[in-house]
């Protein structure tokens, strides 16, 4: 008779499960509606020094928007540690914000879920047209051949920050333009007791950003034209090896950096321990750590030879934040109006100044603030020598797999183990096999 009771429990469980499964995820149908035209929920990412700072920057703008349109925007600033999880659960359940910030490298992955509103010509028309935006920024908004899944909001690029005092002390008159020059300068800097360059060796995303650029500089790419992973092709292997060799062979990156994952290299630079830093739009960060703008200079990221440009002269990935709309929002018009507001020339000026990023809107780029010496390097890089990370649906797997491989290689270098072409290839081979089968 006990079995009857057990069976009953089992039956209840299964029936509930079936009921739940029938309900499934969120409404996969539904292209949005205008059921609640007076409110919007907006998930902003943490761009400032702290969540509180982000709120201080955004709230006045949201108040402005409310005054203009009568729509109240409920703001939530989501820390990066949570953002992807929250987006995931929002996508799965259909319950989420109306508008949200996404890292631009996530665009293709999120596009593949089908949860984001595609920006076709009609939608772009509502916010002033596609050609308001810089091409490179548009390149990171979704897979090629498909309508963008989001609209560029803030753009950033990598630059080489260098400590003027250390350079002067070491007798270096101008920042290095090629990697060889950087290594040579590194020797002079080490002779003076400072470390030449920093890196966040244990930060998976940072690793990807750098090896991607190196791969481009070697004329290779992590994915083939039809989107298949190709991590073991010789150019890619050489590229990854060159980056890790900065620590392993050339010794311009100290071994301690292999475990850095919390922006310690930025602190090292701000404290004057380290001569150079390859970072995205670091000015706001350095200022908060007490480093004055006059004590450092900004130069383009080195290339193999020559000057930055396109093709093998790429020296940065296109970094940035995009603004996306959830397809099943219940305030479609309001959301579009909000996007229009946030990408308007005026707002772009205000927001990008606050976050020390570059506006992806062409008209706003003309403002004086973005043509200062510090920002002009970034602006030029974005316009001329930046490339978007592969816009494939498996982008996050790619970041995880290859980023971890580079982290392990740095760990090898730090432990004194040899980093050879074979060992690099082996790690990349393993990373490639972790990618989903195509």
């Amino acid at each position: 008779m006990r079995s009857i009771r057990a069976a009953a429990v089992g039956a209840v469980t299964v029936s509930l499960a079936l009921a739940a499964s029938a309900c499934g995820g969120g409404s996969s149908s539904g292209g949005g509606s205008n059921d609640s035209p007076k409110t919007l929920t907006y998930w902003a990412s943490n761009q400032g020094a702290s969540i509180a700072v982000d709120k201080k920057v955004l709230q006045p703008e949201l108040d402005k928007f409310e005054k203009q349109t009568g729509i109240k925007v409920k703001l939530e600033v989501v820390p990066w540690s949570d953002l992807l999880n929250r987006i995931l659960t929002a996508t799965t359940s259909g319950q989420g914000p109306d508008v949200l910030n996404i890292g631009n490298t996530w665009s293709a992955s999120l596009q593949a879920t089908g949860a984001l509103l595609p920006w076709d010509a009609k939608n772009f028309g509502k916010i002033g047209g596609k050609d308001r935006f810089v091409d490179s920024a548009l390149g990171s908004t979704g897979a090629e051949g498909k309508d963008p899944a989001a609209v560029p909001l803030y753009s950033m690029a990598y630059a080489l920050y260098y400590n003027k005092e250390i350079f002067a002390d070491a007798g270096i008159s101008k920042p290095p333009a090629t990697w060889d020059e950087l290594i040579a300068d590194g020797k002079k800097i080490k002779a003076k007791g400072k470390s030449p360059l920093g890196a966040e060796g244990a930060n998976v995303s940072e690793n990807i950003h750098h090896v991607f650029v190196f791969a481009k500089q070697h004329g290779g790419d992590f994915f083939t034209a039809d989107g298949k992973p190709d991590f073991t092709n010789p150019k890619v292997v050489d590229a990854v090896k060159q980056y890790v060799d900065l620590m392993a062979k050339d010794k311009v990156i100290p071994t301690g950096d292999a475990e850095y994952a919390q922006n310690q290299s930025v602190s090292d630079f701000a404290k004057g321990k380290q001569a150079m830093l390859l970072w995205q739009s670091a000015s706001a960060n350095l200022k908060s750590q007490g480093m004055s703008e006059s004590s450092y200079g900004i130069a383009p990221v080195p290339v193999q030879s020559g000057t930055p440009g396109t093709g093998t002269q790429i020296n940065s990935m296109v970094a940035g934040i995009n603004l996306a709309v959830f397809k099943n929002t219940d305030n479609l018009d309001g959301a579009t109006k909000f996007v229009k507001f946030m990408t308007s020339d005026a707002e772009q000026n205000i927001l990008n100044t606050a976050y020390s990023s570059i506006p992806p809107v062409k008209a706003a780029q003309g403002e004086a603030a973005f043509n200062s010496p510090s920002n002009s390097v970034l602006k030029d890089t974005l316009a001329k020598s930046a490339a978007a990370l592969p816009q494939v649906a498996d982008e996050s797997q790619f970041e995880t797999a290859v980023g971890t491989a580079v982290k392990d290689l740095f760990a090898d270098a730090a432990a004194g183990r040899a980093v050879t072409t074979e060992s690099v290839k082996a790690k990349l081979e393993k990373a490639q096999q972790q990618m989903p089968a195509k």
Partner: protein
Amino acid sequence: MPKSPMAPPSSFLWSRRVFLTLLTGFVLVPVYVMVSSSLKPLADVTGEFRWLPSGLTIRPYIDIWSTVPLARYFVNSLIVAGAATICSVVIAVFAAYAVSRYSFRGKRVFTVTVLSTQMFPGILFLLPLFLIYVNIGNATGIALFGSRGGLILTYLTFSLPFSIWMLIGYFDSVPRDLDEAALVDGCGPLGALFRVVVPAAIPGIVAVAVYAFMTAWGEVLFASVMTNDTTRTLAVGLQGYSTLNDVYWNQIMAASLVVSVPVVAGFLLLQRYLVAGLTAGAVK
């Protein structure tokens, strides 16, 4: 506590001193690090480690409240953990009473099921649970995701299995004569429960309450997806000190201490109940 008839030999005393000293050091060092780092300016904390801070500042203790809405997170955690604990204890008491005092069909299935839930990796049911909450929200309008209620519901269920398990053992050791006496006096079974069993089992109940509270207080994974800015708990909120640009180590330490002090204090006050309580519960 009466002394043993034969005094412990000197080898025992000597090894005790050594062992306890080492252990104290092991326990204390990180606590010292927390305290000393919380009193340093940010530059010191990111520099080379020093045993004694070069300059003391209580700035971190002031900043922590503004960098991150710590007070709100603290209150949220208290509400969530407190409510989860109370509900969990009540439900566990009822369930344990049923298992301890009655025989009925399905008793074994129930206890086995309860035990087996301890083996589930949390990851496995994070997404499904979220889905269920959303569906309930859609169907009934009761918002469970993003609300404290959903988190309370989740946490109270998390601590139920161990609580029921311990309470069963503890109730078992309360003699049935006491129940009999109460019933003879005219109480129903529930009367017996509240008049006799529960008072006799207070230490066990306190032990289980502490466990439930600690479980809810420190849970990170579910809190990170089921809360929004207003309902976020401490466990997740503390991560806000490590932002896009900076990791405010000194503030993290300060905030950790501030939120730990009441918990440790409460814990220590109840400690003696916990000790007495876990005894009989474990010896089933």
